[in-house]
């Protein structure tokens, strides 16, 4: 078999996290009952007109700035015409001729090293509705809630060469969008969708092979598998003397294979033309400056700052900043308790462990920084020990309890009353005369056993060091001790 190179480009659709839709005032919230979040404008009733939501332009420009794109100062909208019942106007308002951002790139890192992936363009468009087929009644319902939800489509250059690079690119892109706050990027809710353009060519060849476009990829895993699957399929076709057909294919992750949807010949003519209902968008220097000023610190900068400012190891800094939510919790909690290393520990160890147990993503974290900070406070002031603190942390994680109240109500605070401690120690020695004798005869190990007993009596609320010291003291004062 010849040596083949895989060439991959991604088209990524991200739903923008604006409160209202792109051309009307309807909410963009996910999951409302069907057709409760639409109006005459987003359902394209006769006589209605679109009015552009300026936040959409700002979000798209922010994404462009963060990916090194040039911002088109006078961008325009175009109509993409096609008939489908989920598209009530029978055209999608999009950008073909003058997209808002062009010519950017982002840096990715894989086992193969660092590499720059070009961004061809980012354009703004509106989402369509959703068809729901009811097999019982054998009919189709249409939910228009998603109509007019703003999207950006980020089109990469064909710069990726492996599934690993494609996933790394997408992960990096997702982080950028999340850090900017312009999109939730939840693949399972469809707020981040990726189509793969893939071709193969013999290694060393300058010309690109015929490409296919793969749709219906709902997870990073599916993307990796689809790249592998399509690469294999194309190579098999070529090796058996066939030709690749330019077509759109649908990935079936359950069956680990793809199916042809339509070929180039069947491709629609979208009859694009400039949208007459919307004047061109002028993005002046002043507006662009405002957007620039609002750009938050992005992941790479944050990672370096954590290392520098907080002395967090590079590995930990990478994990903490690997999720915008995790980084936000880290920073807020550190600001509250002033102990970033301790915060990092709780996030890196207990939090990640519990997330794994719950099979949750860091983005889904509900952990409140104030609660973690007050737990750390309880440890620092000696109110709880580490073992108790772990127990309390689980309660915070799972049930959002307030640590101070929880510790008080469950009597988890450490016993610092020496009278009570001495009383406990006395009882333990009386109940375990053999161990006491062993200790006194020089068996140091016996002390550990007695400390354990005493801690059990105290239901873990004692400071083991203090309990040990009191034990020694009591044993030495016993009649018969040397």
């Amino acid at each position: 078999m010849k040596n083949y190179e895989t060439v991959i480009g991604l088209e990524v659709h991200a739903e923008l996290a604006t409160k209202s839709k792109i051309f009307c005032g309807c909410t963009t919230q996910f999951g409302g009952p069907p057709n409760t979040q639409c109006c005459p404008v987003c359902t394209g009733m006769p006589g209605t007109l679109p009015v552009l939501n300026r936040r959409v332009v700002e979000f798209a420009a922010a994404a462009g700035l963060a990916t090194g794109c040039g911002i088109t100062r006078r961008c325009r909208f175009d109509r993409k015409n096609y008939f489908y019942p989920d598209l009530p106007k029978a055209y999608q308002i999009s950008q073909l001729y003058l997209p808002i951002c062009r010519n950017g790139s982002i840096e990715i890192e894989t086992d193969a090293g660092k590499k720059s992936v070009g961004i061809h363009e980012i354009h703004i468009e509106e989402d369509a509705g959703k068809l729901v087929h009811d097999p019982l009644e054998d009919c189709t319902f249409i939910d228009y809630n998603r109509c007019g939800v703003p999207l950006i489509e980020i089109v990469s250059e064909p710069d990726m060469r492996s599934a690993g690079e494609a996933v790394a690119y997408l992960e990096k892109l997702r982080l950028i969008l999340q850090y900017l706050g312009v999109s939730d990027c939840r693949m399972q809710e469809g707020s981040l969708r990726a189509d793969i353009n893939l071709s193969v060519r013999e290694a060393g060849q300058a010309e690109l092979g015929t490409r296919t476009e793969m749709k219906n990829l709902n997870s990073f895993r599916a993307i990796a598998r689809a790249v592998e699957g399509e690469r294999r399929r194309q190579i098999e076709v070529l090796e058996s003397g066939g030709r690749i057909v330019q077509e759109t294919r649908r990935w079936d992750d359950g069956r680990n294979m793809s199916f042809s949807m339509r070929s180039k010949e069947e491709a629609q003519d979208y009859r694009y033309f400039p949208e007459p209902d919307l004047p061109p968008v002028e993005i002046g220097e002043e507006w662009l400056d405002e957007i620039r000023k609002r750009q938050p610190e992005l992941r790479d900068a944050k990672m370096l700052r954590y290392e520098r400012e907080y002395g967090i190891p590079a590995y930990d800094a990478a994990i903490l900043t690997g999720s915008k939510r995790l980084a936000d919790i880290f920073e807020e909690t550190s600001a509250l308790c002033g102990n970033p290393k301790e915060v990092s520990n709780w996030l890196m160890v207990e939090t990640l462990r519990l997330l794994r147990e719950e099979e949750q993503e860091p983005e889904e974290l509900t952990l409140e920084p104030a609660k973690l900070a007050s737990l750390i406070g309880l440890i620092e002031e000696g109110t709880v020990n580490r073992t108790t603190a772990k127990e309390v942390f689980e309660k915070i994680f799972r049930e959002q309890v307030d640590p101070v109240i929880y510790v008080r109500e469950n009597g988890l605070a450490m016993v610092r009353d020496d009278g009570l401690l001495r009383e406990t120690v006395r009882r333990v020695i009386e109940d375990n005369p053999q161990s006491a004798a062993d200790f006194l005869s020089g068996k140091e190990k016996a002390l550990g056993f007695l400390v354990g007993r005493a801690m059990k009596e105290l239901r873990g609320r004692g400071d083991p060091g203090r309990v040990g010291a009191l034990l020694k003291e009591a044993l030495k004062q016993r009649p018969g001790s040397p």
Partner: protein
Amino acid sequence: MELTELTAAELGRRIRDGRIGVREAVQAQLDVIEARDSRYGCYITVRREEALARADEVQKGIREGRYSSPLAGVPIAVKDNICMRGVRTTCASRMLENFRPPYNAAVIEKLEEAGTVILGKTNMDEFAMGSTTETSFFGAVRNPWDVSRVPGGSSGGSAAAVAAGEAFAALGSDTGGSIRQPSAFCGVTGIKPTYGTVSRYGLIAYASSLDQIGPIARNVEDCAALLEIIAGEDRRDSTSVPGLDHRYRSALSGGVRGMKIGIPKGYFSEGLDEEIKNAVRKAAGELCAQGAEAEEFELEAADYAVPAYYVIASAEASSNLSRYDGVRYGFRAQGCRGLQELCRRTRSEGFGQEVKRRILIGAFVLSSDCYEAYYGKAMKVRTVIRQSFERAFRRYDIVLAPAVPGPAPKLGESLGDPLRMYLGDIYTAAVNLAGLPAISLPCGMDRNGLPIGLQLIGRPFGERELFRAAHSYELARGGCFRPPAGPR
């Protein structure tokens, strides 16, 4: 003089003075409609009960000082492509035969705020595509001057209603001449405002970059009063323009002394009816007698206006009309199996011939293989035409032209030869391509007793100047254009 023959402004004055009651005016108007409309077919929907109820409400409002506009209490007709909440809005198409919009067009809101009484919805060419009002699903409108002739189109119902005394004033819409051409044929006055002056929100789109709503009335003052009501920025229409001076009535007086008038030479060559040519030249002479200076000039690329207009308008129409698929509202073909058949048959059965012709032209000129040769080229022509008007307005304040090349055709004469019908837009379409304001007003009668229309074209947002010129001419012309009384 009969009450229904008053101008809108005069009726408004008498209502404010208390000499005429709003209900009296509305009732008189409804009586005329009752008596005459079976003959002319101006209306698709008459809001008899609602208009009378509204009359009482407005009367009360006037007494309480809530309505102070000069047209408060005046009954107005509205073209049936303008959405009115809960009122059937058909675009004269089977496709929207029973469509009741859940919202008001911006102009409807403004008419209601001003205290006018909306009488009903007027007949038109289907989706405003046509020059005769014969493409209406509800039947043709007849010209009140000669019922064997068309009233023009597409706002034929509005123009004929005003001419026939079935409305004091009306709203039309103008995409390539649809206000000015029927105004000329019916001997009434109609203005297409500068693109962006009146909100298009709620106007069912034909060609979005060209459509503009405007008044049709008995004289220039009425047009100014009505435009003053409906003009203004609207945040729901991104192409509407803020910060304009909409005081049109106060711009009427002042005369034309020193005003420079340009007359496009090419418009007076072949193809123009001799009588119209003379009447329009005479009108120019009247303006000069008032102190204006007129001069002929070459309006470049004027010959390409009609083809460019039909390419652009059809392209936008093919997209704007794609939403009528039988899924959500409007006509739905029965007994369809599957989506494709539903869409295909709904559109085949719901649209008329002329609409289908323009959708096909539009889809063709936008197809990827033809885009540059047709749509791209038409857009270039549009730029050239805009520039040639810009050059003209550096030298002239007003451009004077005929409104139409010939008299109103007989019914049934036009549709068989669409290309000839399209050429009837030769003096009007360029104005839409350039987005300019233009008014059409009567300037004489031909040998058959049909009115002749004069067109005055202004600078972008130069409506005040345009009204002043038109009003000046109207005063000089004198008289009043009304079709011969009684059933003909």
